[in-house]
């Protein structure tokens, strides 16, 4: 650009210090003058493409060399950062590249908090702290789960990310995960149902804990049970496939059933293992049923008498003194006939 108002005599090139010939071209940049051949990049000595240069510490550089020599690279995208540079976390960033590692919000104007080597916004930092306090983070949105988490295929979620497989209603933590193929261990096949639909699907509910039964089902007393929840009403030990005894809507183990309901042998006082002989408000092992007077074994066909609700064989009864037999006979006639022996 030719100087007009200045006299050539006191004009000198800013680079080489020489004067200018009368018709020589002069480059003027912010009041400094150059020979055109002197107005070049301080690094590559070539003219500035399209006249664009960058100045740094009194020297001018072409765009390329300036970037190479001085411009910062973005810690995220690796590109040069032109314009506003965010210096943070020991690196340089484009403002649009420096974001919260949890929620992806731009942090340039919001400020950030360093959390275990991550830059987080204030909200996410609070959430991350909450996780440390034992709360769940949704596997889908990574947000904190304030309510109860919905467990699905081994992860935890906000219920509202899912809809019921059957009716499509938005789910909450009450939703039930259903094994598509019962007994199939892998859970990739599992599906979610709302409580209403789940209950209509006929999946057995344990009569004790009221939760669905997905493993082995015990059916007894008109209800379904988890194997480990089907227990003796007295000792509360699970039957685990052992025989149980039912009485008035409750189940008992062998020992407690007999202890409570009297199927202990009157003679040996043990649980009657085989057939039970029942008479006179008592029970006997078949081989222990005997005359209470002479201890002779009796069977179903043996005729016997009753004295104080103990069995007495005919032979022994006939040996009773007459006065006692008279009294027994009288008492027997008095008792209502339904109690006949």
């Amino acid at each position, binding site marked *: 650009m030719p100087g007009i108002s200045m006299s050539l005599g006191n004009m000198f090139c800013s680079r080489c210090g020489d004067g200018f010939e009368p018709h020589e071209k002069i480059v003027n940049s912010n009041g400094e003058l150059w020979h055109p051949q002197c107005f070049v990049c301080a690094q590559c000595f070539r003219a500035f493409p399209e006249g664009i240069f960058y100045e740094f510490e009194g020297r001018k550089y072409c765009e390329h060399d300036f970037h190479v020599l001085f411009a910062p690279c973005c810690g995220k995208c690796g590109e040069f950062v032109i314009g506003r540079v965010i210096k943070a976390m020991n690196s340089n960033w484009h403002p649009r590249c420096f974001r919260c590692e949890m929620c992806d919000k731009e942090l340039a104007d919001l400020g950030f908090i360093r959390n275990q080597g991550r830059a987080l916004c204030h909200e996410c930092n609070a959430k991350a702290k909450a996780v440390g306090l034992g709360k769940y983070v949704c596997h889908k949105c990574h947000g904190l789960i304030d309510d109860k988490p919905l467990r699905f295929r081994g992860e935890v979620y906000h219920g509202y990310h899912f809809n019921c497989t059957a009716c499509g209603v938005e789910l909450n933590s009450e939703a039930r995960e259903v094994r598509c193929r019962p007994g199939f261990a892998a859970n990739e096949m599992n599906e979610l149902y709302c409580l209403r639909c789940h209950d209509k699907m006929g999946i057995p509910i344990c009569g004790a804990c009221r939760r669905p039964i997905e493993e082995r089902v015990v059916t007894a007393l008109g209800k379904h049970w988890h194997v480990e929840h089907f227990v003796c009403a007295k000792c509360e030990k699970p039957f685990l496939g052992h025989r149980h005894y039912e009485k008035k809507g409750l189940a008992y183990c062998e020992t407690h059933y007999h202890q409570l309901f009297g199927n202990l042998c009157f003679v040996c006082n043990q649980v009657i293992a085989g057939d039970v002989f029942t008479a006179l*408000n008592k029970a006997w092992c078949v081989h222990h049923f005997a005359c209470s*007077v002479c201890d002779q074994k009796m069977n179903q066909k043996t005729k016997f008498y009753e004295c104080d609700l103990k069995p007495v064989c005919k032979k022994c009864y006939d040996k009773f*003194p007459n006065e006692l037999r008279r009294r027994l006979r009288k008492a027997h006639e008095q008792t209502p006939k339904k109690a006949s022996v």
Partner: protein
Amino acid sequence: MNQAPVSCIPNSKMSRPKKVIDEAKEIQNPELDLADKGIASFEEMPGLFNMLNITRLTLSHNKIQVVPPGLANLVNLEILNLFNNQIEELPTSLSSMPKLRILNVGMNRLGVLPRGFGTFPMLEVLDLTYNNLDESTLPGNFFMMETLRALYLGDNDFEFLPAEVGQLKNLQILVLRENDLVELPKEVGDLSRLRELHIQGNRLTVLPPEIGNLDLVSSKSVLKMENNPWVTPIADQLQVGVSHVMDYIRTETYRYVYNRHVSADRPPPPKTNDKSKKISRARQQS
């Protein structure tokens, strides 16, 4: 009156006690049946006290008068049956038999029991039916037998039952038929496992309301209470059934009736049971 039914049976049909014992020894039979063998003394059974293996000894319908203390040598004995003999006393040693579970001394002539009788470690069933026992002759520790599940005291002479009966917490059967009982102790109501109570043929007028604690009307329970001079409201309920009696004695109305009856302190009804013909009295008669 001479009561000796055994003598009527021809001797040829009876094997002698010694023969039975020898056979049992030979085949190692742990159960010894010696009922109705006309045995008058343990001396007729030589070697018996050395048969340590036997678990049951049945000697009913004999004429034994004395039980020697040596019987307690049979440490494996679980069942001892001496029904219908002429025993007047039992040896103290019996109570120390370690495995004895069932003792039947019914229909004898027992007027007393030995001191310390209640120390049986395992006794479950005790039959003292048809003897001459009453509350004054029971030893002090009689009701310490915690393992007892059945106690037969029918056909004896009790007028009162000691309150200590409430200590028999495993008792399921209590028979007091045809004694002279004037009242029942309220502690009977503590016998929570009781499912048979026989109190028929006594002189009872009221039941302690505590009896209402017991379950005596379920399908597995028996309450026999006929032939007592019950107060009118109980007698009326008994007409309809024992379950009505049980319901009634649980009411406030009955509690009032009972308290009034007890405080009135009327003389007990007279004895009505004629026991003169009982064979347990035979000795006194002869």
